[in-house]
């Protein structure tokens, strides 16, 4: 476990929406090849953390180091170019585009047509449900299918680091299991995953490492296994009394 290299480091991030401070001195390390999950209650700043990493929100203080390079303040486009891809909260697929067009959008920055096509076939193998629906408009699919599409779309850019914002939100239990299985599979194929989740149990069961955020500050960090057994964790997030 210790032999994996850090791929992304947040150093004392302070992020604001206007005057309101949302992240306070947040520091995190995401190791290459691992699944790291970020837990926390509503409005604790989880999505904000992801937005900061993906360049949509520029932190007031602090640094973001990605693969040894300081990427603080870079635009989202630059982040995608460097291999950071995001599955946004609530999926946000292009509802008026077909599944195929959605996938093509994911590969927007890539020029290698042949490889894009191969990747698309790979995606369809990974998400067989999408295969039957290539010509269907994204907006007409069920929530679970949309989540799969959003993941596949993000993967089409061949990311090294995949950011996911609550992939299990609003899905039926069956779908949640499937989605987590696929996340594990993606990770095993070599993509580092940083995932925000409310479903702490499920998330910790597949993750290697976890952070817990409370009102914008990191209050707990440990290996997933130890977090699962942490008494405070169990009370606050894992639904045990």
């Amino acid at each position: 476990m210790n032999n994996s290299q850090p791929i992304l480091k947040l150093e004392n991030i302070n992020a604001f929406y206007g005057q309101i401070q949302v992240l306070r001195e947040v520091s995190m390390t995401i190791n290459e090849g691992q699944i790291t999950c970020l837990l926390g209650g509503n409005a604790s700043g989880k999505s904000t953390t992801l937005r900061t990493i993906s360049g949509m929100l520029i932190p007031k203080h602090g640094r973001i180091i990605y693969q040894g390079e300081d990427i603080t303040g870079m635009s989202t486009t630059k982040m995608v170019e460097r291999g950071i891809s995001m599955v946004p909260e609530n999926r946000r697929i292009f509802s008026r585009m077909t599944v195929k067009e959605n996938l093509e959008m994911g590969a927007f920055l890539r020029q290698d047509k042949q490889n894009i096509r191969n990747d698309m076939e790979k995606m369809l193998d990974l998400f067989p449900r999408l295969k039957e629906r290539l010509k269907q408009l994204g907006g007409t699919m069920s929530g679970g299918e949309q989540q799969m599409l959003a993941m596949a779309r993000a993967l089409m850019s061949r990311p090294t680091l995949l950011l996911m914002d609550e992939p299990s939100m609003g899905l039926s239990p069956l779908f949640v299991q499937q989605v987590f299985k696929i996340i594990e599979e993606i990770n095993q194929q070599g993509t580092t995953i940083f995932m925000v989740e409310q479903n702490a149990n499920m998330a910790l069961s597949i993750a290697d490492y976890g952070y817990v955020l409370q009102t914008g500050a990191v209050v707990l960090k440990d290996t997933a296994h130890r977090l699962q057994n942490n008494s405070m964790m169990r009370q606050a997030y894992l639904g045990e009394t």
Partner: protein
Amino acid sequence: MNTSEHKTINNIQQDLLKCIRIGVYAGIICIFVALIGMVEKFNSRDIISEVISMGHTLLVIITLSGTILTIQQFRQISLEYKHSSNGINYLWELLVGIFTGLIISSILAIFVVFINEIDIRPIFINASPTLLTILTFDKDIYTATMNLLVLGVVLGFIGTLFLNLPGKLRLLLIAGISSVIILGMFQDIITIILSKDGWPKILLNFLIDKNGVSVTASIVIFILIVITTSIYPYLPTAYENTMRLVAIYHSINLRISMYIMLAITLLLRIYWFIAISDKNLPMLPLCREGYITTNATLGQCAIVVYNQFNNVTNLFANSTSIINLIITISELILVGSISYSIISILWKSLRKTKSYNTNNLSELEHQTLIIKTKRNFSIVMGSALLLSLPMLLGVFPSEVLVNIGIYMLMGFGLNIVVGNAGLLDLGHVAFFAVGAYTTALLTSPRASLELGLSFWAALPIVIVITGLTGILVATPVLRMRGDYLAIVTLGFGEIARFLFLSDWFKPWLGGAQGIIKIPPISIGSIEFIGPHRIYYLIILFALIALFISVRIKDSRVGRAWMAMKADEKVAETMGINTVYYKLLAFGMGAMIASISGAIFATKLGTIFPHSFNVLVSITALSLIIVGGIGNLTGVIIGALVLVGLPELLREFSEFRLLIYGTLLIVMMLLRPEGLVPKSNTNTMIKDQDLIQDAWVENSTIYSHVKR
């Protein structure tokens, strides 16, 4: 028992309320159109000569729509409450219909009595004695009121009857009646076209009587349209089958040969024009006068090129007839098929290796071939028609076509900004104006710069400058979307006009006097003066703009815009640089609009700031919305409807804005996707797409093609 009776009574009350409401609305609309002067204005014309006037038609249509709407409402209510038997339903409907008709007509009758008694002209200037005569049919007030009421009952009855006809019959009736009405509305323009030399005089005399369509003509046209409409469902199949046959028998690469066919025809035309004026050149057999007609359609532009327009009016006068068009088309097909056969033989011998035998074609390739054949067929026929239009129609209709073209061009530009990139721009006129002013500055010898460049030298500069203006305007509004963006751009449009008008720029731009003496566009010694020549330029640029728009829509840039329009934030997470693509959209939209402005300036020869008011922007935006946002066919149709119709319908032009507004509201309610909804264009997938998709799934492809 009790409850159901109760329900029925409730029901009747409901129905009555509905009838009264819609009836009152329709009645108020009748009074409204009368008071704004529409009825009187329209009444100067008859739809059918000496039978029914346009003003009366308007009122009849409103009344009929009122009753029909009411009955439809009534049907919905009946469905909800489940009325008893059908027979009773019909009776109810009849009652409701007649009642509504009666309400509408009684409102009108009260209005008539009112304006008969009290002179309200100090307030409503249009409530004139003429209006009274129209509404009373020139009878005394008591007979008139009675007549109106009876008419209301009759119309209510007709409305009910109409709704209860079988669907097919209804369609035929609508088609027949509306074509007679349309003919009546367009009688002016039809008279202008048909009274030109070259059209058989009998046609005009037959169609148009003193003040409207002649009675016989309306009957004949009604019957003709009814027949056409009834066989219409079979036409697409017939067309499909013909194309299938063509595709099977000539299963070679049709595209090239069809284009060559068009080119050869054009070349022959041009040669013929040169040969008749230059006696030294021999007449080619194919160019013999008897064969290729003495009058030209397709080659009109060619002679213009050669003769420098010295006897243009002459030529123009006798160069139009329907026979001419027919001959041109048959000539096209004849020459085309000869060249076509030669090329197909050549082609086959050249490409022996690849067999084009249909038996070896997969279903997919076959479908592709048919699609190609159809497309080439429409390209050839379409270009033949496009090229001969000014000769067929004459000067005034060509003028209208040019105006349509100018707006269409601007529409293509605006469509990139609004339709593709989803940025609501209400100030597009600014770019149109910058294009026009830059052209004027650069080309007019009387402009402050005294450059006197030729149009073609100025055009690239104009395009670049306007493109930069677009980027300049877009920069401050990058963070804005939707309503905010619309208001800010609206402001920019007005600012542009005020700048052109201002004293500040007066030394350069001439203030309210504008810039005069803008020379016409010329190629060599040929000058593009007059609508029938500018038309060809417009067509040229519109085609270029269309081509660019089509290509860009399917390109990487187009997809970036599409994503940005759908969800800006997510587009960014796909790696789309939204700042860049927004600027690009504004820049390109501005560039296309600038060409439109440039042609506009040379067409008028003089430009004033007042030509560039906010109405231009609104019209351009409306035509996009009416056509269907983001849809190129929609832009064309929108321009035809919104720019063409008001110019052709003399009576309408005064009420242009009223009709725009009504049209937009109705569109938003009934067809929010526009006249040409997007799904239509989605089904017109390209053959490349078909083949590309082959790896996806076979079954889906065929279902897609057949649609």
